[in-house]
């Protein structure tokens, strides 16, 4: 094994947390059972790394095997790094009938045509998602396995999720994906987050949604929380209304975990107390950013507790309704 391969393996072992290492290596299945048993996982990581390096050398494992291990790790723990959502547009007639082998062949052919030195790995996960790992190189260098791009696509849906893509290779990946999926173009869905499952659920509307109803009271069979007859709430109806509106805007139950919502303002400054800024003709450029560990949960709580006024402003509810978290607001509208 040459130095670069050793370095890739070292980096990878350092990245995988110790608790998961044993299961990952088991899933990898490139080391025999005796070899796995010979490793003592209670040792410090650097000792383990040395032993693993030796084992891999013995078994003659190469870069492509190590990248397999990395892919297994990322598929199991997708919620790291920054994921961006993209949407495919203008489906052609045979877009819905694309199946896996066809997609794989097309994608690999397209990408290698566009840029010769790439390393591509495609894997289908149990939940019908296709995972693609691309390591980019150019005409003179070998593919850089330390900074790979991961792409997740669910066949028959127009959504693609990408992490680790630099702007240099973005058009190439776009073109390869568009051709392989038989769509016309791909645009940025303006949705990004650390949590892949969250942005996937948000874009594909897989969270529990609440629809406006005429009679929102639940069925009487549901066990009500035993309420103390001596305690009575004066504003009970208001509270229920607020909760209903909050759930309609953001959803019920566990919500997808978004971290940020960014509103880029390009509107004219409007404040009567500040004449110098109000008189300017150019738009006042500002950025409003909401950040939280679980943004949708916090916004829903703001509305249901009355901190944000109801009805929910479309600026906030369009995060879930349109499935994006980056907005540019101009004077004519969002």
């Amino acid at each position, binding site marked *: 094994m040459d130095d670069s391969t050793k370095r890739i393996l070292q980096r990878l072992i350092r990245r995988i947390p110790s608790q998961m290492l044993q299961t990952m290596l088991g899933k990898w299945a490139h080391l025999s059972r005796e070899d796995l048993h010979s490793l003592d996982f209670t040792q410090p990581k650097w000792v383990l790394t040395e032993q693993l390096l030796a084992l891999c050398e013995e078994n003659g494992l190469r870069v492509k095997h190590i990248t397999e291990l990395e892919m297994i790790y990322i598929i199991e723990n997708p919620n790291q790094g920054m994921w961006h959502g993209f949407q495919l547009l203008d489906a052609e007639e045979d877009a819905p009938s694309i199946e896996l082998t066809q997609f794989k062949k097309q994608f690999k052919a397209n990408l290698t045509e566009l840029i010769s030195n790439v390393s591509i790995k495609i894997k289908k996960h149990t939940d019908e998602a296709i995972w693609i790992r691309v390591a980019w190189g150019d005409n003179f260098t070998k593919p850089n396995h330390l900074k790979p791009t991961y792409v997740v696509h669910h066949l028959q849906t127009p959504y693609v999720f990408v992490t680790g893509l630099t702007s240099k290779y973005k058009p190439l990946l776009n073109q390869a994906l568009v051709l392989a999926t038989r769509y016309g173009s791909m645009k940025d869905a303006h949705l990004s987050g650390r949590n892949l499952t969250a942005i996937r659920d948000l874009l594909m509307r897989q969270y529990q949604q609440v629809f406006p109803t005429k009679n929102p009271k639940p069925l009487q069979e549901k066990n009500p929380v035993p309420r103390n007859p*001596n*305690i*009575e*709430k*004066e*504003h009970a109806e*208001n*509270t229920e209304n607020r909760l209903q509106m909050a759930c309609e805007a953001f959803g019920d139950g566990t919500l997808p975990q978004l971290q940020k919502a960014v509103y880029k303002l390009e509107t004219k400054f409007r404040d009567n107390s500040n004449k110098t800024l109000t008189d300017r003709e150019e738009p006042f450029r500002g950025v409003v950013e909401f950040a939280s560990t679980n943004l949708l949960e916090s916004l829903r709580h703001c509305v249901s*507790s009355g901190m944000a006024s109801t009805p929910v402003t479309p600026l906030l509810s369009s995060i879930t309704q349109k499935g994006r978290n980056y907005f540019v607001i101009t004077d004519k509208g969002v």
Partner: protein
Amino acid sequence: MSLLKPFSRLTGLNTANILLVENEEQFQQKLADTVVLQEKTVNVNVRLARSLPLPMENEESRPRIDLVVFIIHLTSELSFQSAETSLKYLDPGYFQGKVCFLVTSARNVSVPPERLVSVRTLAASLHCPLLCAEDQTTEGVTTAAHRLLAILKVAAGLVPMATSLYLSTLTRCTVPSDIDQQNFE
């Protein structure tokens, strides 16, 4: 303006009704549970509201309110403003000992001291008692409930030889005037 009137209804036997007004609607629930649990001899009814005026729909079923407690969280300016605006919807008859202010986070370092001063001046101008409560621990909630119950029983007329007006002259909040402060003796 729909004012809340103190004597518009007949009282029930051995009952006391307390109204907790809090903008955030957090502490009032805990306090209500504790108050109801603590009191065994008197039938205590607690009504929770966010602000005044109270909705008209409950006008018929609402009993006579003996004590109105305004819960103000010093950490939020909105809490104080909401309590101030709610005061307008109380009949003046309440201010003879049937209104009480309950303040939380008074010891909190990040709270600007002017807020407590303004709450005190407000309570002093209305001749109402000002209680400080600690809402994060169960002991704090129990203590606050205990004190509120003491005032409530007087306000409901369940303590012989004591009326709420008499009690309020003893418990009302005072703000030391500047003249007193300057004369150190």
